[in-house]
């Protein structure tokens, strides 16, 4: 069999295993072991443990469980509610203010947490019922939280950017910096859409009222708050502002490497959560520990098994042939970028970000660089694609979270809700392609 045939067979077997519903980590592992057994010299099976150890023997990977435990600790407190409550009190009178407060909540939480589903769960747990109580449609409230949650992997810290940095040997510090402006800008676009959508809903409701259909339509309502009420929520935010500032300072002020910063963040978060939120009883701590252990193990196992999977691809020269084939395609750089994005979008429908990045980046990155794109910039584009994958059916981790928070909302409503945000994100990728400075300006500025 030639490389092409083996490559296709490998792809086919892997897809079957993945779609069989097996855990992604073990599906990748099974496929890799099978091909090692049938197509590679037997000694490769004798090296399994060493191969895995060699891949996991990586100081930077430690950032992943650390950032996860940080997010888990903060997620366990009422910090998310505080975040969003104070944002709301300062937003009043604007149409869609509650929705905007939710976007702000997601944005701030994203700066404290490296994963998207965690961001989604933390803000949505409170945000979705509140929005619905005040007349937001099911679609808008769930779509908004699903999309807002994805900011978790774009705004640093980000597990996705860590993995990308690891396998492309790009500086994680630089990648984190590169995510800041696009993250804030995307949050702004989400907020703008909420204001637009709420305004439209209010206008429709007004028209309905004028037509005499008083009981048919509910529109987003907003309350007003006095200055006193606005000021009194601020102290509750202080701990998190301090934590974010400490992390930012440590990262860009040169206190440590990414792993060290993650260590400081995790330690600081545990401390804050214990001192400020009095979360030190064994049952609370145990819940944080179990949640973090599970999430981090799930991701680390995918990473470990994906390493075996890509080792086989590389040994059988599937990666190299695919990369050569892609780099040699007779297409313009924009066409290449377009098809790469389409590929990522399709994969994103089914696979979680970690698996996609590990499996696909070695194949597409040579072509990206050959076409003159900046790998840091591409890391951000890739991450936005991964964000999209989190809210596209049939497999979207954020969609599952939403379903968990709001089980009575029909799937079709959630999907209707996320579509506008999907379009915004696709448009945003196009914007970054036209103005790459949105990504590269900050890392270059701090880098010189």
């Amino acid at each position, binding site marked *: 069999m030639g490389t092409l045939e083996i490559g296709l067979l490998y792809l086919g077997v892997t897809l079957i295993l993945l779609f069989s519903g097996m855990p992604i980590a073990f599906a990748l592992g099974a496929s890799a072991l099978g091909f090692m057994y049938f197509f590679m010299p037997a000694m*490769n099976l004798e090296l399994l443990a060493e191969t895995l150890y060699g891949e996991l023997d990586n*100081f930077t990977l430690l950032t992943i469980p650390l950032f996860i435990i940080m997010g888990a600790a903060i997620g366990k407190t009422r910090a998310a509610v505080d975040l969003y409550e104070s944002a709301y009190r300062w937003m009043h009178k604007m149409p869609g203010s509650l929705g905007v407060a939710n976007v702000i909540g997601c944005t701030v939480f994203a700066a404290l947490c490296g994963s998207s589903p965690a961001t989604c769960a933390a803000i949505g747990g409170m945000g979705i019922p509140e929005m619905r109580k005040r007349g937001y449609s099911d679609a808008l409230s769930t779509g908004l939280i699903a999309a807002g949650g994805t900011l978790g992997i774009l705004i640093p810290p980000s597990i996705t950017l860590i993995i990308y940095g690891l396998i492309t040997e*790009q500086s994680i*510090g630089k990648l984190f910096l590169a995510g800041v402006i696009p993250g804030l800008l995307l949050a702004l676009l989400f907020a703008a859409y909420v204001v637009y959508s709420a305004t439209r809903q209010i206008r429709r409701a007004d028209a309905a009222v004028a037509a005499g259909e008083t009981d048919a339509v509910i529109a987003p309502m907003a309350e007003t708050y006095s200055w006193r009420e606005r000021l009194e929520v601020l102290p509750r935010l202080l701990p998190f502002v301090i934590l974010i500032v400490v992390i930012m300072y440590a990262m860009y002020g040169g206190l440590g490497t990414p792993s060290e910063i993650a260590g400081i963040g995790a330690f600081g978060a545990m401390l804050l959560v214990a001192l400020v939120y009095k979360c030190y009883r064994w049952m609370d701590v145990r819940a944080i520990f179990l949640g973090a252990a599970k999430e981090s193990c799930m991701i680390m196992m995918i990473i470990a098994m994906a390493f075996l999977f890509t080792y086989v691809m590389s040994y059988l020269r599937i990666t190299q042939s695919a990369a050569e084939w892609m780099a040699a395609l007779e297409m313009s750089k924009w066409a290449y970028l377009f098809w790469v994005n389409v590929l990522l979008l399709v994969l994103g429908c089914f696979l979680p970000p970690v698996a996609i990045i590990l499996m696909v980046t070695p194949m597409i990155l040579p072509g990206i660089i050959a076409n003159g794109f900046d790998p840091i910039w591409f890391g951000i584009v890739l991450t936005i694609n991964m964000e999209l994958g989190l809210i596209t059916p049939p497999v979207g981790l954020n969609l599952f979270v939403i379903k968990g928070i709001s089980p009575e909302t029909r799937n079709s409503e959630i999907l209707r809700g996320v579509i506008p945000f999907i379009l915004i994100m696709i448009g945003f990728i196009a914007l970054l392609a036209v103005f790459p400075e949105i990504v590269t300006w900050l890392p270059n500025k701090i880098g010189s």
Partner: protein
Amino acid sequence: APKVIKISHQFPGGDGPEADFRHRLAVKFAQEVEKRTNGELKFQIYPSASLVKPTGQFSAMQTGALDMTVLPLAYEGGKIPETNLGLMPALVTSYEQGLRWKTAPIGKALSDVVEGKGVKIITWVWQAGGVASKEKAIVEPSDAKGIKIRGGSKDMDLMLKGAGGSITNIPSSEIYNAMQTGVLDAAVTSSTSLLSFRLYEVAKHVTTARKNTFWFMFEPLLMAKSTYDSLTPAQQKIVTEVGADLEKFAMEESKKDDVRLGEVYAKNGAQASDMDDAAFAKWRELAKQTSWKNFAEKVKNGQQLLDMAQAVK
């Protein structure tokens, strides 16, 4: 059908005279052997650790999963302590002296140890290195006092610790950022890496290997013994000859990088210093009291091996 030999290494690929010479060494070897064996042996080269991670390469050769690699031998120091000689500070004094190991008793001893573990040395390659630093040039041991420095290997760390340096272990991919942000004040590594990491953008000083250096790394082209044994005697002869022929190429390219290091750093506004004999002597004295001493104590026949290495003129 031709026999396919897989070469894996951790250095960047690419062709042209600017590309990493360690990759070009692998390519040259492959082309020449393929030509001389009339295509009986074919090669697949995996640069940038795209097949096996740097630390896994040696055992991959031991089991036969990998045929060849270009590898800093001291990576195996935890399993084969003798290989630490390949990155022992101030032990090798020049490229020429290092190459003479090959025919001296020390070379035989090292080859025997490695071969006993199932791997053959095909091309003897030494590579010099230097120090990039931010505040001041690190030329003498006293310059390292209180400096946050990355030695990059066990024995370098021991010596720098002895000089009063604050050893900071970070992955090589983070060196640039660490120096930029001040996590690191100085980094010690090969001239080639000091160039490819673009540290001249963040460092103000560099100490080159143009005159002397305490940093010589043994980075041979290796072949799995099982692969070597599976070749015909004629093929074995070609492999050995081509491997030996490339030693001169490797030395010249490595020296070029030492010179280029000074030039590129100077061009980017950093100050390039050289290490005079007196400074080198101080480092050597320090190394004897720290890393050499530790090696002699911890490794069986350690002192004997050090003596053999020093006996090479």
